[in-house]
Every structure is written in structure tokens, then in C-alpha cells.
């Protein structure tokens, strides 16, 4: 029968969900909000998890994710598929935004992790192969990080999740700058091996 008229004539989110991220970005570039919504739904949890881990505060993490996704919407043309997946690109934007937010905060505020009752998502039923694969990947990455010597995992966590510069880390640990950089490099190289990319890092 006759369907209710839908002004605008946009495809539905359900119709678009069959498209790959890279294809959706072409529609986002043309200003199609529904395509953007599908991208948001696919990556918002990962983005928020990263921001929350970095900021430690729900309100700040929300601001960071909102800024990140809006900048992505408004500059969708800058996505270059030659430089990795849409997910990596989204998380890279959110990571940069969170670092900016953390570096704006005073030194005293930093590292104050205030959990405001956000619980880690407990094994929601894994509906898709993609989610299943992601959970596997998360476990592998956590294992790889935990298996590093403390001195290496610590500098990586302080840098990547804490948003500290290598100079700040060196001063916090009372270690020379060169030593800190060396631990970062060694730690990342070992993780790379552990994550199944056996190509040797340039020595």
C-alpha cells in the first residue's frame, strides 16, 4: 500500500547498513546524515571507551567523542582509505582530541581517575562475527601489553592513554628522555611480534 511520505528521500539506516564503512564515507562526504549515523553506530562504543579510558571522566569523554565525530562529519572528505580503516581513522581523531583535552587540564587534575559508575560492558551476546573478532582482538592486545616488562608497558600506557609527552614521562619517572623513548620503541616492537606481525622492526 501507499507508504507515508518521507521528505528528503534519504535511504534508511537499515538499507545503508549493508554498505562497508569506506562506501558510507562517500555518502557522508555528500552530506548524508543517515550514512553518518551508521558510521556512528558502528564505532561510537570503541570511541567512547578510548576517550573514557583516557579522560577518566564521563563528561569530558563525551565532549571529546562529540567533538571528534562532528569534526569527522564536517571534514569527511579528508578520509583517505589508503591510510587505514575508517575505524582506525575515527579512533585516531578521538585519540588526538583526548590528548588535547588532557593537555589543557592542569597538572594537578591529571591522572585523577574518577570512575563515575560506568561499568565495563559485560559480555553482551556476540551477535556478529565482527564483534566476536573484535573481542578476540581486544584480548590479544591486552595480553600483549600485559606481557611486556612493567617499565615498557608503563611508558606506553602513560603516553597513549595518559596523554603525557615523553618529556613529562621522563621527569615523572626520573629517567633520561632517551631511555623513555627506547622503552616505548622496544615495547611497541615486542607487541608487534606478539600480535602476529613478525616483520622485524627497523633496527
Amino acid at each position, binding site marked *: 500500500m*501507499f*507508504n507515508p*511520505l518521507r*521528505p528528503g*528521500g*534519504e*535511504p534508511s539506516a537499515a538499507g*545503508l547498513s*549493508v554498505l562497508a564503512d569506506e*562506501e558510507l564515507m*562517500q*555518502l557522508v*562526504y*555528500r*552530506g548524508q*546524515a543517515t550514512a553518518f549515523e551508521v558510521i*556512528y*553506530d558502528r564505532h*561510537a*562504543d*570503541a*570511541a*567512547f*571507551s578510548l576517550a573514557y*579510558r583516557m579522560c577518566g571522566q*564521563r563528561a569530558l569523554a*563525551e565532549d571529546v*567523542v*562529540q567533538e571528534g*565525530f*562532528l569534526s569527522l562529519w*564536517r571534514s569527511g*572528505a579528508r578520509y583517505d582509505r589508503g591510510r*587505514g580503516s575508517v575505524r582506525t581513522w575515527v*579512533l*585516531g581523531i578521538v*585519540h588526538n582530541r583526548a*590528548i588535547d583535552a588532557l593537555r589543557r587540564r592542569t597538572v594537578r587534575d591529571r591522572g585523577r581517575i574518577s570512575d563515575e559508575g560506568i561499568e565495563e*560492558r559485560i559480555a553482551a551476546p556476540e551477535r556478529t562475527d565482527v564483534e566476536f573478532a573484535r573481542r578476540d*582482538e581486544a584480548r590479544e*592486545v*591486552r595480553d600483549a601489553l600485559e606481557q611486556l616488562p612493567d617499565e615498557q608497558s608503563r611508558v*606506553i600506557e602513560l*603516553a*597513549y592513554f595518559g*596523554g*603525557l*609527552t*615523553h618529556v613529562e614521562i621522563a621527569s615523572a619517572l626520573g629517567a633520561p628522555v*632517551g631511555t623513555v*623513548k627506547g622503552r*616505548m*620503541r622496544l615495547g*611497541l616492537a615486542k*607487541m*608487534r611480534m606478539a*600480535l602476529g*606481525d613478525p616483520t622485524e*622492526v*627497523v633496527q
Partner: protein
Amino acid sequence: MSADEPPMEDQHNEREGCGGNAAPYVLGALTDAEHQAFVVHLESCSVCREEVAALQVVAAALPAAAPQVSAPADLKRRVMAEVREDARRQASQSAASRAELSGARARPWGSRLAAPAWLSWRPNLAVAALAAAVVVLAVVALSSGGDGAGTGVRVIRAQVLPSHARATLNVSDGQAQLSIARMPQTAPGHVYELWLKRSAAGPAIPTDALFTVDAAGAASVGVPGGVRHVSEVMVTSEPLGGSRVPTLPALIVARVA
């Protein structure tokens, strides 16, 4: 280094510490000044570029090490409210410029992104396309549809190229909805695009209605702006992102007037 190699490559200098910056760079741990200098350095140092590429793979995996939590639902509402507002503004702008330019298509985000030259509107091609479209119409001419009885809703049977496919245009009060059934799935990297013609001899005006069909080949698409001054509604298959000039043949043609 042989004389044949590019002179400015391989500025790698371990003693100046450039080798040590790849790891803090991929972790976002260089100071702003160091970061900018390193980005410049990367242009001329293939050793550092390779190291960055290798370590970036690991940095890209690090978000998975964060405890996974759900994004709050009200965050999505806030983000999408802004996005939809942007899109509405954009749609009204492009509708206005479509009317002004009679067929030229506005780019999303207006002048912020200059359209590549090869995308610019080419009237000669449009005319050629239309000439061909008329031929297609003659070839696929089926039946021309009739009016719904006294309901204020006109149901127009569209001419459809793919065998087995069906399409009807439901017109009510100047608004129109194209209902499609049993259309083939779009080819990889393609979408269906809806076009309007103001007169049989006029250009095919692209719309922002890009769509795919569901597993059964069905779709229901609103005609942007309605059909008050439209003589034909057309559907073609186009590369993702749509086109400004229809790729023939037209797969669906509905004659409004």
C-alpha cells in the same frame, strides 16, 4: 649511496636522535614542536617512515586494550541533532542552488571543498544523455499508468528496464514516493540515484536521493522536493556518491505529466 638515487632521500641520522622519535610519535607523545619537526623530517627520511609504518600498526590496535563500555544514548542524540541540522541546512541550500542553476548540483559544504574540474557540470554530456534516455524510453515502453480513483493519490506505474522489477510512483498533494520491488541488487561500489526532469526535453537534474534495495529488491524512496513541477522521475545506477550526469540506461522512468 649511488648517484642515481634521489639526492634528498634518507636524511636518517641516528646520532641526532631521529630514529628514537618514531615510537613517541605514533603514541602521540612528542611535544607539539617536536611533532611538527618530525612530520617535516618524515618527508625526507625513508628509514623513519618505515619505522613509523611498522609501529603505527600497534598503536592502531591499542584502543582495544581500553575497557570496552557503551557510549551513552544521549551522546548519540546530541551528535545526531547537530548532524541533522547541518544536513537540513545543506539540503535547503542545495535545493535553492539547484533551482537557480537549473540542473547544476551544489556540493555538500558549499565552497569549502572545491569540486574537481572533471566533476563540473557538462551540459553537452547532459544533452547526449537525454537523447539516449529517450531511446531507452522507447525501447522499454510498457504501460503508462493510470490515476488512483478519487483518493487524491495518483499511482503511476513506472517503466522499468530490469525484467521482473516493478516500480510505482505514488503522488499525493505534490509529494511523491517511489516504491520499487524486485530490483536487482546494486553492483559493488554502486548505488541507485534518483533524477528529476522538469520537461521531456529538459536536463536530468540529480537529487540527493541515493539508495540501495533490500534483500528482496525493495525500496521506498521519497522524491526530494516533490513533483509539482516535474515531468519525469528517473533512476539510474551510479558509482557511490552519485553522479551529476546520469549513467545510462535509465533503469526506472516514471512519467508524472
